[in-house]
């Protein structure tokens, strides 16, 4: 299977590779620009237990990703459980009940700390005031970009962005709709709700 990720901005290459690996049979060959896309895809694939071989092709890099990956090894145990993504639903820009200021600080702290955690979610869904974390002015954009580079899909509710007049100001991940949110939650392997 071949995938052309040249010209894509981060984290799109990692997200594309992740999706392709979920369905790929055998080797996956990816064309990538040098720099962050190449490094991020290599790190992502190796982190998941795949083997990566590199070659230069027409000024771009071709990465051949082979192996079963760690996810496939764990599959037999999960056979009885749901096999969908590990989802984190973030329905607020505050963590916990209490003073707003403290809650906002804790949420920022939480998202940045996820970068140091071994098992990150496959998908983070931001709804209601949660979308303030993915839009311009958020203090966690840098952390969300880094999570994206590790294969985390960052998705924000379009209606919510619209409500807060942030539709044009989304700065991390992509816009999603209620169908994807509902489907993600009902098929998820695990859901963590904040």
């Amino acid at each position: 299977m071949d995938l052309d990720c040249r010209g894509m901005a981060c984290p799109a290459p990692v997200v594309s590779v992740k999706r392709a690996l979920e369905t790929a049979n055998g080797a996956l060959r990816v064309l990538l620009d040098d720099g962050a896309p190449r490094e991020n895809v290599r790190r992502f694939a190796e982190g998941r237990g795949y083997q990566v071989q590199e070659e230069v092709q027409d000024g771009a890099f071709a990465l051949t990703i082979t192996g079963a990956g760690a996810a496939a090894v764990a599959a037999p145990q999960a056979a009885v459980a749901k096999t969908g993504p590990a989802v984190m639903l973030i329905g607020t820009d505050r963590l916990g009940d209490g003073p707003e200021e403290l809650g906002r600080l804790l949420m920022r702290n939480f998202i940045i700390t996820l970068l140091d955690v071994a098992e990150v979610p496959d998908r983070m869904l931001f709804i209601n005031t949660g979308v303030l974390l993915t839009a311009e002015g958020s203090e966690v954009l840098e952390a969300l970009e880094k999570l994206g580079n590790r294969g985390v899909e960052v998705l924000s509710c379009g209606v919510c962005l619209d409500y807060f007049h942030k539709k044009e100001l989304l700065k991390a991940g992509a816009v999603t709709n209620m169908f994807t949110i509902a489907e993600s939650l009902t098929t998820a392997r695990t859901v963590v709700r904040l």
Partner: protein
Amino acid sequence: MVNEGDYVVIFNSIHRVMEAEKLLKERRLSILLIPAPRALAADCGLAIRYGEEVRQEVEEVLTQAGLMPRESFRKQGEAFIKIEGE
């Protein structure tokens, strides 16, 4: 979240670190409140990160406000080198 050459300063209370952040943001200085890196055990678990380009201004503002950090570090390679503090 801490890049090569960045400064990381730690305060001895959550109230001080929040006050410092507020003050620095009011001055539109490019700083970020981050969880204190695990290597730097801090009581409140929070730190302020900034780059060389704003260092002087950040430190002046904090000194004038009497909000000196408990400890200051600079990231070098994998290590945090202590610059000031107990």
